[in-house]
């Protein structure tokens, strides 16, 4: 199957190519929100990302659900764009505490599709089941005390998702009926999915390195496209 336009085809609409549909979605949302739409990105044939401003976040939900008919709630979560100061902890064949590695400078923080200005972004996905489209929404939330309005008044199902995002990232959802922990015990301190929260398991027992690599079926030792030495990981292949 080719990559671009037949990949996600449905028999329901043979005449409109996907990216026209998605461009149309962006245009419609911009029309409804005006300045609320900050940026957007359409991956032709695949998906569309729209970044809105925090002030317009609740209105986005209403426009999508009520006006544009995207009544299906997919999920709501967050992304922490800061690169992890602990590295990938994949290269640790040695005990990092005994022989500390020299601290590499953190790569600069970059954000993904549809851009972003802050460290935290809340993402949400809604879909219109009858017209067969879905859209991913992003919103920047502040760095010091991240907060964004709640979606629970529009999508009742967002209640649990916002609880989880609050618990894992520390993002406050203004207007949520009852923000309380979802998974973690009541006395847990910290927000685990933030990048500066370490994965404690890797500190308790360092990763022994990649010890088992299975050869690809039928492929011997061809020269690979991305060399193993390119990023200094300690394991031997």
């Amino acid at each position, binding site marked *: *199957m080719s*990559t671009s336009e037949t*990949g*996600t*085809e*449905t028999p*329901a609409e043979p005449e409109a190519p996907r990216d026209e549909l998605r461009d149309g979605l962006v245009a419609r949302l911009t029309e409804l929100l005006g300045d609320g739409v900050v940026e957007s990105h359409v991956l032709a044939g*695949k*998906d569309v*990302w729209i970044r809105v401003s925090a002030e317009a976040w609740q209105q986005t939900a209403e426009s999508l659900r009520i006006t544009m008919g995207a*009544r*299906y*709630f*997919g*999920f709501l979560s967050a*992304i*922490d764009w800061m*690169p*992890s100061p602990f590295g*990938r*902890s*994949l290269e640790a064949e040695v005990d990092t505490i005994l022989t500390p590695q020299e601290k590499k400078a953190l790569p600069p923080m*970059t954000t*993904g*599709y549809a851009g972003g200005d802050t460290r935290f972004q809340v*993402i949400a*996905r809604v879909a219109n*089941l009858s017209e*067969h489209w*879905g859209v*991913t929404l992003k919103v920047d939330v502040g760095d010091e005390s991240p907060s964004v309005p709640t979606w629970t008044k529009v*999508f*009742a*199902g967002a*209640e*649990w*998702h916002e609880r989880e995002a609050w618990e*894992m990232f520390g993002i406050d959802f203004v207007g949520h009926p009852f923000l309380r922990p*979802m*998974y*973690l015990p009541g006395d847990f301190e910290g927000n*685990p*999915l933030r990048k500066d929260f370490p*994965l404690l398991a*890797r500190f308790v027992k360092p*990763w022994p390195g*990649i010890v088992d690599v*299975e050869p*690809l*079926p*039928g*492929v011997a030792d*061809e020269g*690979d*496209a*991305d060399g*193993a030495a390119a*990023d200094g*990981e300690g394991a031997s*292949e």
Partner: protein
Amino acid sequence: MTAISDRRKLAYIAAQAADSRVNVELESDGMTLNIGPQHPATHGTLRIVARLDGEQIISAEPMAGYMHRGYEKLTEVRTYNQVTTLVNRIDWLGSFANEVPWILAAEQLMGVEAPKRAMWIRTILFEMSRVANIILFLGDMAAQLGALTPVFFAFRDREYVLNLIESATGGRFHPNFDRIGGIKDDLPKGWVEDAKAVMDKVRDFCDQIEDLVLGAEVFTARTRGIGVIPPDIAMQYGLSGANARASGIDWDVRRDNNVGLAYPELDWKVWTHPDGDSFARFWVRLQETREATQILDQLLGGIPSGPIMAKVPRIIKVPAGEAYIATENPLGEMGYYVVSKGDLTPFRVKIRSASFNNVSITPWLLRGVYVPDVITILASLYFILGDIDR
């Protein structure tokens, strides 16, 4: 089968909500009952804190997290193939199905497409995991309601499917078979014939269950009109899979938003039911199992020949980008939102699991419900704790 009219559905819901309001207004303190976390009816360690008035629930709050393993954090320090091992364990009853959307998302980011044979075999194993998973549900829901015999038949017939999966992948419960660009190994000799025979057995089992369970008036009396979910509420909460289709929502990711699997070339049907009650959810899943065996017959009849793996580099560094792929897993719609920075490991993975949304509706759904009906409703929603908690 007669459909419950919308007016009656709303009347039922309103009556139950009114009941619970009255109880609160009368300030009857009621009793707080913990259902779980150790309880045969919750499929795993789910705890529901229910405030009861007599046998009626005033408020019910599910507390998940007893099985939270921190998957989303764990994926940040693992390579893509290692994450495949990890995600097997989210929905452990239909385990191959968890790998598929993950691998498809990674393939979309890499711009790689699996060869046709690999795609077909992926679809075959995907449907088999659906059959294995839902067979258990069919027996288990009867067991929750008190009929002890169907669950034994379910386990017996599920063994055949698990044996097939094991002979192809090496693992009954955690196959870990999908790879970026294709699958790990080819099928063993004679597997296709065995699989066709097993599909006949599964169809026999479905007929048996229909006789034994659906034929018992007690079952119908216990499930009709219990736990009605109107379609709009279902969509607000993101209910998916058979739960949504039992409320009349005609949506199946395999037909409407298919990526990377062989469904467009097959001839099959999506089953819906207008009622939205527990009976509908059971019935839809029964028909889906039968439909899955038909799909498998078609798939097994025409596996194309060819390579099972596309050309991918030895060390997989997925280019920067974001992708969200969802598939119609046995429990519902499961999706992975993968953020990659061009590294060996993903940058952030959001696992959209079906059971999380399916269970989030229970506080709304369980108001005013009797305690025995709680068990029926939970059994019919069919969640797996690994899916809720990740």
